[in-house]
């Protein structure tokens, strides 16, 4: 009889085909893998299963008689930036942070915003900050010099185009000039404004300090306190402008975090300052319409390498959340039964299947501890003399994807690659700098759009995917590993606590898609050093690596029970 062991994961579906003959060991014929279609366990996810079975069956010229499924629990994973919903009253201070890499001059100054054309009249007798529109830099410089000659006190400039240095060189090289201010047209003429340009490699200090900002904008002490949000928003920027507007309170309304309800009836906020409780303690989360088996959340990783970046990450209030829900329907089973001639059987729990599959790793014998790290959950299965325990903790590879995506500002698909692959900085068309500081010298130049960018690097293909995030590869590598440590290793610790600990000296086998990632294996090994375990990566059937443990395990368990 031909059977298909099917593991529908949150990200990947795997199918193991095998022939079962009573009294003999199963004959394993193939393992195929593809992306999960739709949400795990739903009718939509049947399509991916049927496609894989069709692909494998075509090679064999035979359809399976039985489809073996695991008892599934879908995981929902998301990341929300609470700060996006916060409202910060800037205390009557408007701000702009030009993106230009080439401002001119150094220092901070404040004056009244006026148009360049207004310099044709009599000097105002107070410091002014002219706004230069899209005109030729020589013409602009001539008008500015003429105005200075008749007594205008020009203390800084705002330039619409990328001409800041050109104008500075023709007027006054020390004058703070910010350029590429796209929304210069909307700046309120007549308002008092402060402009600051930091030295190359530096960041604004006057405008990022609420008291100094208040002095520059002539705000009274009460309004200085209200300017804290504006000052905070300018931290880490090389050039900036702040404009005094109508007075306001300067208060902040923080978006309320979602609440998690625990088994004992108490509640806890899902926020960057709280930690998820023990495995299985959360039974409900605001906005999630399902009975929960577990919930896990974590903030973006912290960095101590760069204070400005650390502050920016903190201010985002980003929380990644994964919830493991009780299944409300049997959509997958019904869809498979309707669309296939095979008999559909729920053969075992996912973790029991993972143990059976992991135990086919050469040299393992019976694997008493199996850690299955997939897209949605970290599953821990323990079969020791004292009994059998199996737990599934919400939050694994997909949650790491979400965090990597939030750190780099990219979509989940690119984030998954950024999670798995090393990064490089393209220093010149011919030199790549790696995360360990090493260099590669190319014989063919890297594409122009990758130069000076952090790039995800596909070693085998040699392709480079440039990212807009301004991070050194060394720092990104540390943040990426921290995300894996926070989610996967942290969650595994919750799972171990839930089963009452693990005996020292035992063998623990890592399986699942994430176990292919050497960094995950390193972080897990580091997290569990106090337990003195022998941690090894699975190699299912001696040929599939840590993949397909559940699919193969379903076949084995079914054969033993058949």
């Amino acid at each position, binding site marked *: 009889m031909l059977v298909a062991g099917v593991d529908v994961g949150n990200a990947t579906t795997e199918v193991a085909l095998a022939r079962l003959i009573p009294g003999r060991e199963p004959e394993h014929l193939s393992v195929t893998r593809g992306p999960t279609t739709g949400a795990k366990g739903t009718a939509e996810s049947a399509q991916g299963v049927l496609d894989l079975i069709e692909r494998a069956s075509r090679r064999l010229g035979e359809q399976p008689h039985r489809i073996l499924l695991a008892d599934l629990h879908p995981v929902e994973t998301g990341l929300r930036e609470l700060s996006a919903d916060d409202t910060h009253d800037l205390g009557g201070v408007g701000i702009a942070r030009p993106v230009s890499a*080439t401002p001119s001059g150094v220092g901070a100054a404040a004056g009244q915003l006026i148009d360049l054309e207004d310099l044709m009249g009599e000097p105002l007798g107070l410091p002014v900050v002219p706004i230069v529109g899209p005109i030729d*830099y020589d013409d602009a410089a001539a008008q500015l010099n003429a105005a200075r000659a008749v007594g205008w006190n020009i203390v800084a400039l705002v330039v619409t185009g990328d001409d*800041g*240095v*050109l104008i500075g060189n023709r007027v006054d090289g020390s004058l703070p000039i910010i350029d590429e201010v796209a929304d210069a047209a909307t700046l309120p003429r007549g308002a008092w404004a402060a402009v600051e340009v930091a030295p190359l490699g530096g960041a604004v200090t006057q405008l990022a300090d609420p008291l100094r900002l208040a002095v520059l904008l002539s705000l009274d002490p009460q309004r200085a306190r209200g300017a804290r949000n504006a000052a905070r928003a300018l931290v880490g920027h090389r050039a900036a402008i702040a404009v005094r507007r109508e007075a306001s309170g300067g208060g902040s309304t923080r978006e309320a975090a979602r609440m998690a309800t625990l088994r004992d009836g108490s509640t806890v906020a899902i926020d960057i300052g709280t930690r998820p409780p023990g495995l299985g303690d959360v039974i409900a989360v605001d906005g999630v319409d399902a009975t929960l088996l577990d919930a896990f959340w974590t903030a973006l990783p912290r960095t101590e390498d760069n204070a400005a970046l650390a502050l920016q990450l903190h201010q985002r209030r980003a929380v990644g959340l994964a919830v493991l829900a009780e299944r409300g329907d049997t959509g997958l089973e019904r869809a498979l039964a309707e669309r296939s001639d095979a008999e559909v059987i729920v053969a075992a729990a996912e973790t029991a299947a993972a143990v059976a599959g992991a135990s086919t790793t050469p040299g393992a014998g019976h694997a008493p501890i199996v850690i299955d790290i997939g897209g949605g959950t970290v599953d821990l299965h323990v079969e020791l003399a004292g009994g059998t325990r199996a737990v599934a903790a919400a939050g694994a590879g997909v949650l790491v994807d979400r965090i990597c995506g939030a750190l780099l500002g990219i979509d989940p698909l690119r984030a998954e690659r950024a999670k798995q692959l090393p990064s490089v900085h393209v220093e010149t*068309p011919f030199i790549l700098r790696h995360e360990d500081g090493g260099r590669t010298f190319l014989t063919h*130049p890297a594409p*122009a*759009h990758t*130069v000076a960018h952090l790039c995800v690097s596909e070693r085998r293909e040699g392709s480079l995917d440039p990212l807009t995030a301004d991070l050194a590869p060394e720092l990104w590598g540390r943040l990426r590993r921290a995300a894996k440590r926070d989610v996967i290793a942290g969650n595994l610790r919750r799972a171990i606590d839930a089963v009452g600990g693990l005996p020292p000296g035992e063998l623990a086998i890592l399986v699942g898609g994430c176990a292919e990632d050497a960094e995950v294996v390193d972080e897990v090994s580091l997290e569990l050093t106090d337990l003195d375990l022998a941690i090894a990566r699975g190699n299912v059937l001696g040929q599939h690596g840590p993949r397909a443990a559940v699919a193969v395990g379903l076949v084995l368990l079914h054969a033993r029970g058949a």
Partner: protein
Amino acid sequence: MSPPTVVLASDDAEVIRAVAAAFEEEAVPLSVVAPISARAAALRSPLGIGIALHDGALAIALSTGPDVPYVIGDDPRRMGRFAARLAARRPLGVTA
């Protein structure tokens, strides 16, 4: 001692003004020579970067690697910015 420069090979005053403006804005030194190929200009550049007319457009060439233009475009200010940023190791702002 003269500073390391990118070499622009052109005798077109408008092109020279626009490219030179881009280099001044990026604070990258530029030297101008009589028209030669972009590759030849790159070979003369201590920074290994040359700019010249190529098939009716402007080409940025590198002194090493394959003898083909690295970037081609029509707008001299924009091409000057790309070449200057290439020398300064700043993102060029080009798309794939």
